[in-house]
């Protein structure tokens, strides 16, 4: 039988074969053309991408520099800490999970939330996921930061059974002295999303920490160090030809070691700060600054209330940080404010020495100028009150007894601009340039300032108020300390310093900061002598405002101050019962020892009431402690010297 023979007429197709061949060949040519584009033209780009796919740069953590005080005691360091992560896909919810929850002390609502997440992820299929889902499946969830040793020990010994639970070391910044000097030393915070935009090019990544305030912030770039990296081939640990594979794909340098951050030695003395803290215990809020009058180095700066830098840095967990800051920000005593640097207050009578120097240098008064104090001063239609009735006073008694009437008289003779000019000479109204924390400028009001501010004719009464450190005059605690240091050292205004030197981690000094003079004020030494002898009288003379609270074993000169805030304390009411925030600020500014000064100290007790009663005892205690420390250090040095001197 014939197969299909008679019906075959293939002629119809003839003309179409050529077209089919043409279409087929050109389609293949298109494919080859695209291949040439991918493999030849863009080959390098794709090769680079392919390498990028398999190579991971694992960063090698650096260690942050240590901060030490003037005596070499560690103020900020790094301590090991352990975080616990879990991989939800691997967790055994029924067998081991309850034990983990109990060991870590995870509370009920958090436990529920975590279990929901675990179930959700475990419900995902193990195959056929998009890379995004894959990532989600393999992600780790932070269970708890900084777990205690017992928990770490438990988790490590049971590591085999506890699938999906992982303990990883993560150094945490540690401040051995907690609240002491926290404002100056600073604390650490996590880099925020908006910071990252700015900081990314400087090598910061999400989850990194940086100094939030104080030295930690100002010297961040020194303390931080440089992260290293190690290139690895993805998943290479699973392969048995690790060396070969790495040699093939990794370009040099395959590993760059991290550079540890620089260590920083401060001028601060933590013992002195501790002493301040102790002396301040009876008071709620305030600040103390102690500077070396011969160098301008800040020996102590303290602001109360303070906060625990460890908690603020996250040493007790993220939740504790949020909780702490909520509390700090709600506190009317403003614990987060550095009151030694960032806030300006009316100086009150502690400013009187500078008013006196202004008048003396203009020869408006001399030590024999006599003013009769009858409890106040009439000027125009107003009566300016004094702290008491001092009768006939000269400059010396006026400072010793803090007679306002004398200074009102002085203020009626001197121009306000002249008072301001002398103030600025001593560093008031200008930022000191300490470098840490946002600095308040304070204010030395001038005639033009008043006319600009009040848009009316200048009144002489403003000058009277300026002369006693009230009115619009404000200063920072640090400015006052430096100005008193300048009084003490005969007229040298120093730039305040907190950092003494920068060292590498092995102790080699990289940079050293010698004292820097801001200005030589060059006051008339005779006039300065009169003022200084009055400052000694404040403490040593029977009428002196600090006399009652003096310690006989403390050799100190200075001036008390009671600065009014907004409202005048009503008469006849027990100061303790006046609404706290209407109370006067209590001040004491001085230097010690009186005859050959080494340190200047300023104590501000916010709303403390009278300066003599409240600020002086604190200053006395601190200076007494300082004297003791000095003696101890001297004798131990002598011991060392004599020990070294001995043969054998």
């Amino acid at each position: 039988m014939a197969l299909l023979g008679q019906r075959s007429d293939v002629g119809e197709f003839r003309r179409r074969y050529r077209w089919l061949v043409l279409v087929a060949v050109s389609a293949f040519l298109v494919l080859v053309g695209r291949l040439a584009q991918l493999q030849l033209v863009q080959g390098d780009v794709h090769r680079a991408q392919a390498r990028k796919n398999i190579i991971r740069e694992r960063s090698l953590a650096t260690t942050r520099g240590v901060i030490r005080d003037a005596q070499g005691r560690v103020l900020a360091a790094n301590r090991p800490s352990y975080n616990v992560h879990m991989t939800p896909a691997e967790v055994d919810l029924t067998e081991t999970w309850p034990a983990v929850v109990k060991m870590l002390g995870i509370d009920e609502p958090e436990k529920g939330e975590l279990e929901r997440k675990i179930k959700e992820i475990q419900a995902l299929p193990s195959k056929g996921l998009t890379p995004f889902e894959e990532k989600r499946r393999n992600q780790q969830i932070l269970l708890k930061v900084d777990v205690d040793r017992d928990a770490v020990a438990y988790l490590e010994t049971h590591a085999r059974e506890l699938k999906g639970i992982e303990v990883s070391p993560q150094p945490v910044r540690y401040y051995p002295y907690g609240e002491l000097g926290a404002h100056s030393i600073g604390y650490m915070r996590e880099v925020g999303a908006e910071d990252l935009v700015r900081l990314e090019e400087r090598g910061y990544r999400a989850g990194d920490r940086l100094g939030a305030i104080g030295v930690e912030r100002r010297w961040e770039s020194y303390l931080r160090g440089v992260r290293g990296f190690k290139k690895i081939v993805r998943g290479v640990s699973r392969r048995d030809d690790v060396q070969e594979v790495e040699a093939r794909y990794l370009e040099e340098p395959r590993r760059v070691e991290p550079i540890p951050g620089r260590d920083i030695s401060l001028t601060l003395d933590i013992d002195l700060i501790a002493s301040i803290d102790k002396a301040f215990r009876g008071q709620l809020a305030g600040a103390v600054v102690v500077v070396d009058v011969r160098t301008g180095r800040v020996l102590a700066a303290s602001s109360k209330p303070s906060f625990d830098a460890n908690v603020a840095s996250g040493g007790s967990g993220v939740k504790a940080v949020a909780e702490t800051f909520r509390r700090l920000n709600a506190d009317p005593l403003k614990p987060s404010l550095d009151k030694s640097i960032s806030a300006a207050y009316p100086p009150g009578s502690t400013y009187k020495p500078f008013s006196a120097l202004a008048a003396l240098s203009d020869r408006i008064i001399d030590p024999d100028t006599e003013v009769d104090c009858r409890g106040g001063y009439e000027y125009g239609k107003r009566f300016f009150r004094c702290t008491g009735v001092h009768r006939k006073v000269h400059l010396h008694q006026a400072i010793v007894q803090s007679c306002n009437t004398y200074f009102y008289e002085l203020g009626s003779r001197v121009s306000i601009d002249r008072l301001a000019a002398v103030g600025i000479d001593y560093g008031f109204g200008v930022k000191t340039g300490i470098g840490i924390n946002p600095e308040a400028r304070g204010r030395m009001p001038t005639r033009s300032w008043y006319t600009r501010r009040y848009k009316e004719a200048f009144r002489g009464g403003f000058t009277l108020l300026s002369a006693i450190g009230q009115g619009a005059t404000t200063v920072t605690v640090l400015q006052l300390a430096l100005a008193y240091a300048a009084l003490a050292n005969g007229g040298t205004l120093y730039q305040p310093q907190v950092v003494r030197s920068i060292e590498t981690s092995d102790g080699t000094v990289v940079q050293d900061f010698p004292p820097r003079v801001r200005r030589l004020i060059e006051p008339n030494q005779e006039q300065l002598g009169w003022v200084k002898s009055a400052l000694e009288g404040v403490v040593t003379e029977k009428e002196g405002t600090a006399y009652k609270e003096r310690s006989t074993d403390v050799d100190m000169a200075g001036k008390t101050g009671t600065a009014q805030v907004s409202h005048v304390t009503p008469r006849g009411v027990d100061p303790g019962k006046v609404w706290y925030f209407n109370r006067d600020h209590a001040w004491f500014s001085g230097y010690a020892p009186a005859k050959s000064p080494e340190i200047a100290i300023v104590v501000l007790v916010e709303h403390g009431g009278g300066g003599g009663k409240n600020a002086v005892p604190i200053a006395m205690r601190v200076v007494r402690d300082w004297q003791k420390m000095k003696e101890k250090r001297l004798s131990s040095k002598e011991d060392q010297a004599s020990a070294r001197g001995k043969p054998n």
Partner: protein
Amino acid sequence: MAVASRMMFKRGPAVDMRLLFAVVLIVTAGLVNLYSATSVYADTAMRARLADIYVTQVYNMVVGGLLAILVAAIDYRHYERFAMLVYAGGVFLCGLVFVLGSSTRGAVRWIQIGSFNLQPSEFMKVLLVLMIARHIHNDHKNEPRTLVDLVIPGVLILVPVGLVMAQPDLGTGLILSLTAATMLMMTRIRRRTLTALLVSGVGVVWLAWNHGMKQYQKDRITSFLDPEHDKTGIGWHALQSQTAIGNGQLLGEGFMQGTQNQFGFLPDQFSDFPFAVFAEDWGFLGCVVLLGIYCFICVYAIHVASQAKDRFGAALATGIGALIFWHTVFNVGMAIGVLPVVGVTLPLFSYGGSSVVTTLVGLGLLMNVSMRR
């Protein structure tokens, strides 16, 4: 009649060595490439699975090869009579999938028989080619065909295509339609009819996009048009494939050295993207050689068709050539990013029993026609 028959077998059918050589080359290259694709670094369980895949593919080749010899041995002209029967059987199996099928990733494609997974839509490709060839053979009028003339082949095509699309398997539906359309283009069709068909085709695509298509199918197409936009899903697959191919550069990374493949960046490297594996290992030169062989088979199929003694043989050869052509162009096209990612296999490179057997049987048919021209 008997004389004519005897005259035809005067010298006896001789094996076409050129075609055989080309097919053996592709089979060898496909197995070598699959070895690379299944040697990726993975955990023990995964490696065992991959080794399994490789061995299975070797079996597939052997089974397909034997079937191809069988198919080639019997004069193709006998098949004309059975075309209708096997076509109907194929359509029945495609329908049976919905009853017995096992589903993977939301698509029902397989019928499980013992430990074998049968994919009727793959076999349907050859069966449809046979059926259309039969239709063309019997439809030998001289004037150009009108729309009415195309109703029967249209139904023949649309029934299996509809069933396959409903599974849903867009790739196979596309291949079926394109292959059958290519075969019909061999015959003379009126210009107006052709234009009308094209216009309505566009309309159908529009309708399908708005009403008929599943979201994941649309996603594939949108991610093709804008792969950068969707770096996590399907667009990511396409980008990784292009990276792999580009990484091959001129000479390739070397056998089993392509990092995109070795480090698991190629999704479905043994089924959807074997070409990327090949291109990364062997580079541009290797690709040109490989595409050259595929191109040779396609062109050679047309050559065989042009020399066929009857309409059935000519249409059959053209159909097999078209099948190989569309598979290759779509698979390579999606790997190099000029066509959207649709699940179309690369003949004899992609892993899959049904696909390999179908391709080899198809090539057996081509050989058959070639031997008897």
